[in-house]
């Protein structure tokens, strides 16, 4: 293909885009909606995943022991728990260490207290490799002889995993519906464009236009709609994401060690190319097959 042919057919494609405005707008709107939902779902999912991962890296279970339980037995139980597959790490915290940490948190209020009030607070911090196994693990530990108390972090992983799959299913459903609607609308837009230009196409064929030359403008039309349709939601999502991060940081600062969000670009370096590829893909295939069907040159 010559460069001049490329630009000529591209220009005709752009003219097509503006020629049937309403159909173009309808196609644009559905593609945008589709990719907006996709982007939103993706941002939520990667953030949830990030939060879960962060939570997994934090303490989720603290095990306290019966009063006067010898250190050897405590060590034994610690080793027993550490041997389980869902456990990534077990750390022993002595009573003194526990007090040192707590008094640091108390600050001035702890001044003057000389004797360790937490004599029986020697404990094991259990770090999990799989948060979803937390509930079961707690049950297991509770029935071990010598264990007095098991503290779970108030954060429950199950909630997140549940929300996670809900978001996934709902968004996959909506994306599937919108995807087919946008393919349908693009195809309609191109069909209208073809019927509007029937005369021109006939003349082109008489003059000896190749299939490529006749079809290319319509395929360009689809690609352009797909491109704009994917760029719009990206821009919108970018701003929404920034606003949401700010909002969370301002209003939910007290949950900051739970709501660990990803910076904008961590999400968008993936979202931008994927959205553009989907948009251009819909535009290309939607128009390509329509043109093949309707333009038997």
């Amino acid at each position, binding site marked *: 293909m010559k460069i001049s042919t490329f630009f000529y057919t591209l220009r005709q494609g752009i003219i097509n885009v503006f020629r049937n405005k309403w159909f173009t707008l309808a196609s644009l709107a559905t593609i945008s909606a589709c990719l907006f939902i996709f982007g939103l779902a993706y941002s939520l999912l990667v953030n949830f995943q990030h939060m879960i991962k962060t939570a997994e890296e934090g303490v989720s279970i603290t095990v306290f022991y019966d009063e006067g339980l010898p250190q050897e037995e405590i060590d034994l139980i610690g080793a027993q728990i550490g041997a389980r597959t869902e456990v990534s790490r077990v750390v022993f915290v002595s009573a003194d260490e526990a007090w040192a940490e707590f008094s640091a948190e108390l600050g001035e209020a702890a001044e003057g207290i000389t004797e360790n009030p937490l004599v029986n607070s020697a404990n094991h911090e259990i770090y999990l490799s799989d948060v979803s196994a937390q509930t079961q693990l707690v049950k297991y530990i509770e029935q071990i002889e010598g264990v007095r108390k098991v503290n779970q972090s108030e954060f429950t992983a199950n909630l997140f995993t549940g929300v996670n799959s809900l978001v996934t299913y709902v968004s996959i459903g909506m994306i599937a519906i919108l995807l087919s609607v946008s393919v349908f609308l693009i195809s309609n837009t191109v069909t209208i464009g073809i019927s509007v230009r029937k005369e021109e196409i006939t003349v082109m*064929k008489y003059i000896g236009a190749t299939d490529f030359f006749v079809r290319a403008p319509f395929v360009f039309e689809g690609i352009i709609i797909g491109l704009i349709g994917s760029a719009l939601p990206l821009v919108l999502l970018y701003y929404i994401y920034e606003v949401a991060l700010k909002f969370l940081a301002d209003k939910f600062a007290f949950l900051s060690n739970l709501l660990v969000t990803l910076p904008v670009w961590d999400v968008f370096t993936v979202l931008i190319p994927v959205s553009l590829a989907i948009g251009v893909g819909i535009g290309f295939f939607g128009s390509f097959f329509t043109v093949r069907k309707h333009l038997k040159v």
Partner: protein
Amino acid sequence: MAKDTKKKRKVKANSNVEKYAICLENINKSYEDGVPALTDVNLKITPGEFVFIAGETGSGKSTLIKLLLREIKADSGNINVCGYDLMRIKRRNVPKFRRNLGVVFQNFRLLKERNVYDNVAFAQRIIQKSEREIRKNVPSILSAVGLAGKYKAKPKQLSGGEQQRVALARALVNKPSILLADEPTGNLDPKNTTEIMHLLEKINENGTTVVVVTHNREIVNLMQRRVITLRKGVIVSDEEKGGYIDED
């Protein structure tokens, strides 16, 4: 690739056919409804000829033009145009074949939203001429058809005669070896009709084979050229320097 197809063409075409710009042997064509539009048509036109196809409405003239353009395919017989075997030509080679032909119609078929220059340049862009060539060729063909001052006009700002000149310029700008004209003066007044016919003669004098479909008796009688007369899909007469034969 071009080299390859050329070789194939040479092998297929027999020497008898190569002599003619257009060669039809025992061509039959009927449409879906089964009514025959052309029956056992035999026709040979040599390069550089000027030929009228005459006949009343419905006699099959346009069907013949469509066969020559390979817009439709004959049911049986042999048809060879510019060395292309149109019964066996591959679909993807049709565009290349059509670049040997120029065609104009009664209703001009100009693109309404484009000006005169772009209507003609359109034909060159389709065959992927460079913009430099287009800027050279389009003005030259437009002045040849007498439209030098009207580059920027839109079709609806032109008279019928002028519009047909634009259509002719578009058909000729790619330098076809055959010009097909299906009732080119059907929508024109006598003055414009004569002018367009003179233009067609001039084009023919420059070496282009010209086939003109018409049922304009005055023109046919005036010009004293070869006249092929169709009646109900059958060639009823083929005369050098002939006249218009009335239906009786």
